[in-house]
C-alpha cells in the first residue's frame, strides 16, 4: 500500500488544443510549489498523481495555493487484489473514526473493466470489510460522515476519503503576462491575485518618489510582491521607476484637483513602456468604479486615452468590503494597512477632479515635456526579483 496525492483539475473550457498546454503548465507550477522531482509526478488521463517521499500532508498548504487545482486527496494505492483493497478501505475508515466519523459509505467506480467485480459488488465487499473491522461504524448512503471513494483503474486501485478544495482557476502562465500597477494599498494586490487566478503571469510596477517617500514604502510593496509570489509559483518581478520628477513637475504646472489624474496618466505611460520593453500583453490596476472620487468612468477613460495597451481592471465591479475580505484571505491586507505613505497619498489633493475633461488635461500636459519625463522615470529603473523566500535586486536590465 503506497500513499500518493491525487490532483483533480477542471476540464471545462480547456478541451482540444489547449489541454496539453494547460496540463504541462499545471504540472510545472505544482513542481515549483512543492519542490517535487519530475519522477515524483505521474500524469494519467485527466489526473495528476504526486508521489512525495515524505509525509503527503505537508504538501497540503502548498497545493492549496496552486491555481488550476480544483481539489486534491491523499490516496492509498493498491494492486488489483480484493484483500489489499479491503485493507486500504479499513485503514481509511480507521482514520475517519479517529477524526470522529460514525457513518460511512463506499463509492466505487471501475474504469478498468477487466476487474472481476462491478462497482456495486466492490461497494458491498469493502463495506462488509469495514463493518467487520470497525463495528462502531454504520453505513449511511444519504448523509455519511465519510465517503470512501474507490477507483479501479488500469494502473491500480485508488482509495481516498477526503477531498480538499484547491483554489480553482487556471494555471498561472497559460493566459499571458500582465504588468500590475502595484501601490501599497489594499486593492492592487487583490487585482493581481485575481488575474493570477485566471492564469495570468503577473509582475508589478511600483512608482517610487524619493525623497518624498521613504525606503519603507518601497519595502512594503516588495513585501506585497512576496505574498503574491506565493501564488505565482515563480519569482515575481517588481519594476521600480523613479516618479519624483514627474510628481514635482505636474504639481508645479497643474491645479491640485488635476494632480491625481495627471499622475495616473504618467504612470500608465511609464508602465506601457516597461510592458513593451519586457514583453507584457496588458497593464492591470486595482481600480473599481467610483470607489474613490477619482475612479469615475470619465477619469478612467481619460487615463486609458494615453496608452494603446489593454488595461485589465478585475475589481471594476467590486465593493470595498468585498476587496478587503479577499485581501485578508490572501494575506495582503495586514501589509497594505501598514502606515507608510505611498506616492499617491503624499501628493493627494483634498478635492480631486471627478470629471476630468481630456482637453483640459491635455492642455496642461502641453506645458510638460512628456516624453522626456517618461524617459527620465525609466532611466532610473530598479528591478527586483521577489520570491517567498528572497527579495533580490536584478542588476542587468536590458535597455531599449
Amino acid at each position, binding site marked *: 500500500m503506497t500513499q500518493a496525492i491525487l490532483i483533480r483539475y477542471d476540464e471545462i473550457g480547456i478541451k482540444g488544443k489547449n489541454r496539453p498546454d494547460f496540463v504541462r503548465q499545471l504540472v510545472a507550477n505544482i513542481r515549483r510549489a512543492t519542490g517535487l522531482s519530475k519522477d515524483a509526478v505521474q500524469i494519467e488521463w485527466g489526473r495528476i498523481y504526486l508521489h512525495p517521499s*515524505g509525509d503527503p500532508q505537508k504538501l497540503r498548504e502548498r497545493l492549496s495555493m496552486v491555481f488550476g487545482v480544483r481539489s486534491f486527496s491523499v490516496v492509498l494505492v493498491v494492486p488489483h487484489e480484493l484483500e489489499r483493497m479491503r485493507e486500504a478501505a479499513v485503514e481509511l475508515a480507521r482514520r475517519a473514526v479517529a477524526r470522529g466519523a460514525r457513518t460511512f459509505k463506499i463509492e466505487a467506480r471501475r474504469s478498468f473493466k477487466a476487474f472481476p467485480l462491478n462497482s456495486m459488488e466492490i461497494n458491498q465487499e469493502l463495506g462488509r470489510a469495514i463493518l467487520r473491522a470497525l463495528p462502531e461504524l454504520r453505513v449511511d448512503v444519504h448523509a455519511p460522515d465519510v465517503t470512501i471513494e474507490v477507483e479501479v483503474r488500469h494502473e491500480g486501485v485508488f482509495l481516498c476519503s477526503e477531498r480538499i478544495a484547491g483554489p480553482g482557476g487556471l494555471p498561472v502562465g497559460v493566459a499571458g503576462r500582465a504588468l500590475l500597477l502595484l501601490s501599497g494599498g489594499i486593492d492592487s494586490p487583490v487585482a493581481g491575485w485575481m488575474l493570477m487566478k485566471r492564469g495570468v503571469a503577473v509582475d508589478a510596477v511600483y512608482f517610487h518618489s524619493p525623497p518624498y517617500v*521613504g525606503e*519603507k514604502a518601497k*519595502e512594503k510593496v516588495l513585501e506585497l510582491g512576496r505574498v503574491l509570489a506565493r501564488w505565482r509559483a515563480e519569482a515575481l518581478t517588481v519594476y521600480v521607476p523613479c516618479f519624483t520628477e514627474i510628481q514635482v513637475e505636474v504639481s508645479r504646472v497643474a491645479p491640485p484637483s488635476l494632480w491625481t489624474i495627471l499622475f495616473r496618466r504618467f504612470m500608465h505611460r511609464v508602465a506601457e513602456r516597461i510592458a513593451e520593453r519586457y514583453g507584457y500583453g496588458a497593464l492591470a490596476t486595482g481600480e473599481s468604479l467610483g470607489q474613490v472620487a477619482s475612479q469615475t468612468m470619465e477619469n478612467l477613460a481619460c487615463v486609458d486615452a494615453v496608452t494603446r495597451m489593454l488595461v485589465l481592471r478585475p475589481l471594476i465591479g467590486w465593493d470595498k468590503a468585498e476587496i478587503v475580505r479577499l485581501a485578508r484571505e490572501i494575506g495582503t491586507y495586514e501589509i497594505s494597512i501598514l502606515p507608510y505613505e505611498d506616492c499617491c497619498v503624499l501628493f493627494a489633493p483634498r478635492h480631486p477632479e471627478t470629471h476630468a475633461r481630456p482637453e483640459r488635461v491635455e492642455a496642461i500636459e502641453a506645458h510638460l515635456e512628456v516624453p522626456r519625463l517618461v524617459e527620465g522615470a525609466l532611466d532610473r529603473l530598479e528591478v527586483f526579483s521577489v520570491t517567498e523566500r528572497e527579495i533580490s535586486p536584478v542588476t542587468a536590465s536590458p535597455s531599449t
Partner: protein
Amino acid sequence: MRREVYLDNNATTPVAPEVVEAMAPYWHERFGNPSSAHRKGVEAERAVRMSRATIARLLGVNENEVIFTSGGTEGDNLAIKGVARALRRRGMHILTTRIEHPAVLESCRDLEAEGFRVTYLDVDAEGMVTPEAVEAALTPETILVSIMHVNNELGTILPISEIAERVKRRNPEIVVHSDGVQAIGKTPVDLGWVDLYTISGHKIHAPKGTGALIVREGVRLVPLLSGGGQERGLRSGTENVAGIVGLARALELMYEDLEGKLAYFRTLRERFLEGVRRIPGARINSPERSVSTTVNVSFPGVPAEVLLHALEEEGVFASTGAACASRKRRRSHVLEAVHLPPEVIDSSVRFSFSRYTTVEDIEWAVHALHRAVERLALGPSARR
C-alpha cells in the same frame, strides 16, 4: 593536540560555521536598526522578516506567529507569565509537571506569589506524562497547561500533540504551552493544537542570546518588557538582527534532511549504548521513548562529579544532571521525580550528542568511561 570530545550538547552547542557566515554581514555593514526609516533600517528589517518567514515555514506556522526572544528562559517566562496575567480574570490555576526546566518551574513559583495555584504533575518512571493524567488534573479554573516536549536530563519525549488535543477537546479556552528547547532538530515537531512553543538558538548551533516563542494567532499575552513595541508589542527592544539571522539559518540547517540527521543520531546512540552496557554496573536511565541525542547513565557507587573529572582528563566533556543544579550539590529534581534511588542519582551522568559528534568520538568516550569507571569503582571515592 589532545583530543576533545564534547558530549554536553544539551547544555550548549558550537555555532555552526554556516551560521557564522550568514550572520557576518549584520555586524558591521548591515547593522541598521530595523525600526529606522532609511535604507540601513529597511535592509535590517528585511533580514528579520525573511528570518521570520524561514522559521515559520519550517515549523508550519504563520509568519506573524514567530516572536523573537533572547532564548529559552525568556520564551518560557513570556509564555507562562504572559498568559497567566492576561487570563487571570478567567481563572487562577496552572498545570505543569515536576520535570520542567527551571525557567518554567520558577516562573510558576513567581505566579504562586501573585496568587495563582499551580499543580505540578507527577511523572512515571520514564519521565512520561499521559494525556489522561493531564486531563484528569484540569479544573474549571485552569487557564494554562505547560508541559515540555523533551526533557533535558533524560531525553524523554512527551506526547505534547496528544496532550494539547485532549486539553482543547475538554476546554478550548485553556492555553497550552510547551518548552521545545530540547526537541527542535532532535525529533519531528508537529505543533497541532499547541498554542505556545519555546525554542532556543544556542541548543541548535546558533549563538547564545537567540530564540523564539511561537505564539499562535488569537493567544493573548501580557508582555514582560515595556518599550518600543517591537515583535507585535510582545517583546519590546531593538531586534537582535544578527542573532535572528543566525537562528533562522541554524534551523534551516537542522531541517535540511532532518530524517537523515535523526537516523544518524540513532546510530550514535546505539553505538554508545552498546559500549556502555559492557561496563560493569552501568544503568541506563534514559527511557526507550527519548531523543537519540540524550543518554543519561549511572554507575552506582561512582560519584558523578568524580567520574566527570576523570572523563575530562581524557578530553571527554559531559555533565551531571542539569548544569545549574550541579553547582548547588542539590539532587536533580527530574531524577528525583522519576523515583531513582539516591545512589543512582548521585552517580548519574548525561551524555548529549550533536550532528558534529562522530562515531569515533563515541568510541573514544566509551573507552574513557570504561577505564574511569573501573578505576573509580575500586578507588577511595567509591562506597562512602
